[in-house]
């Protein structure tokens, strides 16, 4: 059982990292990216292939996975830069599905649907399965904490202010003197780097990746984490991710207790329970459990008479 809880913790951490990355793209800039799992896959495959086939050290592979996912993110952002809302959602969804289908059919890249197995993990043999998992929980937790602080810095900076502006009204932000296109691309670059990092870590943790793992359902689970936790709030992203993983896993134990249903019905019932849970959360916490707040920096305490007139402009 303890084994299981540790593995669950690692999964929760990886979900949290994805939710944090998505919070920059979707939560702050308001760009609906349904291709999340595609960038996760790019990170996982890049790091997996480089360490397995070319013998790169694991940290270097993870760094490469992060970087390549970010570059792909920039590419997708440049292609979709004129799209918003539903149109952006459908194109990014198409991107993720394209990645999955290419990886399934182009056997020379990574064995197609058989997947990549034997991806090295740090000190996997030396530590044995239990200690290895514990170690990995440490790694993922540290990565999540670092990412959390980076995201917080970014979204509370002038850069984050521009992203929040784009979410509300792109044209106003343009008139404000900001090149909206480059801000959107930068938001994608950062967010997809986080997704790639999560993917690379995932591959080294489980040692096996295959196209089936990168189905759109994972994208939806991460979106669900953000909706339930609080879209646009970093704490909400982590809380939501932990809750979703906890809920996904705990329903596994509840279903067998329900008498008279088959395994297939049980799986469907699990999905149903998740849907109901989301509805309940959103009914009572429409903006998520930890809603986004408006940043309030301290104001300078200037003497009123000095502040009555602004300086002559020119």
């Amino acid at each position, binding site marked *: 059982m303890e084994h299981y809880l540790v593995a669950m913790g690692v999964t929760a951490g990886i979900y949290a990292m994805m939710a944090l990355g998505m919070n920059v793209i979707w939560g702050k800039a308001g760009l609906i990216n349904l291709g999340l799992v595609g960038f996760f896959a790019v990170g996982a495959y890049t790091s997996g292939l480089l360490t397995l086939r070319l013998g790169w050290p694991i940290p270097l592979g993870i760094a490469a996975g992060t970087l390549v996912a970010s570059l792909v993110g920039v590419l997708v952002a440049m292609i979709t830069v004129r799209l918003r809302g539903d149109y952006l959602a459908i194109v990014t969804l198409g991107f993720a599905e394209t990645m999955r289908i290419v990886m399934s059919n182009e056997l020379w890249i990574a064995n197609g649907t058989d997947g990549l197995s034997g991806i090295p993990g740090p000190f996997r043999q030396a530590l044995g399965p239990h200690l290895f998992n514990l170690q990995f929980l440490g790694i993922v937790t540290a990565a999540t904490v670092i990412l959390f602080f*980076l995201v917080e*810095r*970014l979204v509370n*900076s*002038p*850069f*984050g*202010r*521009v992203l*929040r*502006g784009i*979410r*509300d*009204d792109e*044209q*106003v*932000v*343009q*008139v*404000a*003197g*900001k*090149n*909206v296109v480059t*801000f959107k691309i*930068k938001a994608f670059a*950062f967010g997809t780097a986080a997704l790639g990092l999560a993917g690379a870590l995932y591959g080294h943790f489980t040692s096996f990746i295959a196209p089936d793992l990168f189905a759109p359902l994972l994208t939806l689970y991460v979106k669900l984490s953000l909706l339930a936790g609080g879209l646009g709030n970093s704490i909400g992203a982590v809380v939501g991710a932990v809750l979703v993983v906890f809920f996904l896993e705990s329903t596994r134990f509840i279903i067998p207790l329900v008498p008279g249903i088959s395994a297939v019905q049980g799986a469907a019932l699990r999905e149903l329970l998740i849907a109901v849970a989301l509805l309940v959360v959103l009914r009572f916490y429409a903006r998520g459990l930890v809603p986004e707040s*408006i*940043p*309030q*920096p301290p*104001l*300078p305490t*200037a003497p*009123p008479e000095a*502040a*009555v*007139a*602004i300086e*002559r*402009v*020119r």
Partner: protein
Amino acid sequence: MALLEVSGVERAFYGVHALQGADLKVEAGRITGLIGPNGAGKTTLFNCITGVIPPDRGRIVFDGRDIAGLRPDQITRLGLVRTFQIARGLPRLSVLDNLMLYGADQPGEDMVPALFRLPKALEREEVLLARAVAIARRLNLFHVIRNPASDLSGGQKKLLEIGRALMTEPKLILLDEPVAGVNPTLAREIGEHLKSLVADGITILLIEHHMDMVARLCDHVVVLAEGRHLAEGSFEEMASDTHVQEAYMGRRKWGS
């Protein structure tokens, strides 16, 4: 030379020729009014000047530089900024953030200075903050500075539009109906704000339908009709011009 010179600007939307060679000159240091009947192309001309909609043809020279076809953000950075007819405060940003967003030259809008909180970003933020607070005080928005822009009244939203424009340190502000839908007392107050801005050295071009506002504020009035320059002069001259009267009221068909 005029601060802004627009000549021969054309813009069509499919079959509709909104602008058919519009001309306009804005002299520095005064308030120029742009009037004309509904559908004359006033807002389209604003959109063309500020790059929100690129013109099909024509020259737009601002401060000695042809700006036709530049992006809105480039034009704003040159010192020409606009406000919107229907106030478009960013609803989920505080009034303060709405103002700060319009601040120019903030290195903290790049990722690396933002992530590492570089001193140059923090210093610029302090300067912008002081400016935003001063503008908010000047426009009587200080008491709502922490509220989200969606909570403002209609008149406060109009003031926020002007405040945001001021944050860019503009040479010329284009105001699209700054007092539409505002109560008369506040309208007069906004008028006084505009006069004091001109006294500070900012040039203003405004579209307005309230003729008493135009009469009180504008040093010079340009009339646009059917996408073309029709007449210009002082408000009194325009009000007594038969062509202008015809454009607004229609032609007298039966003689007296």
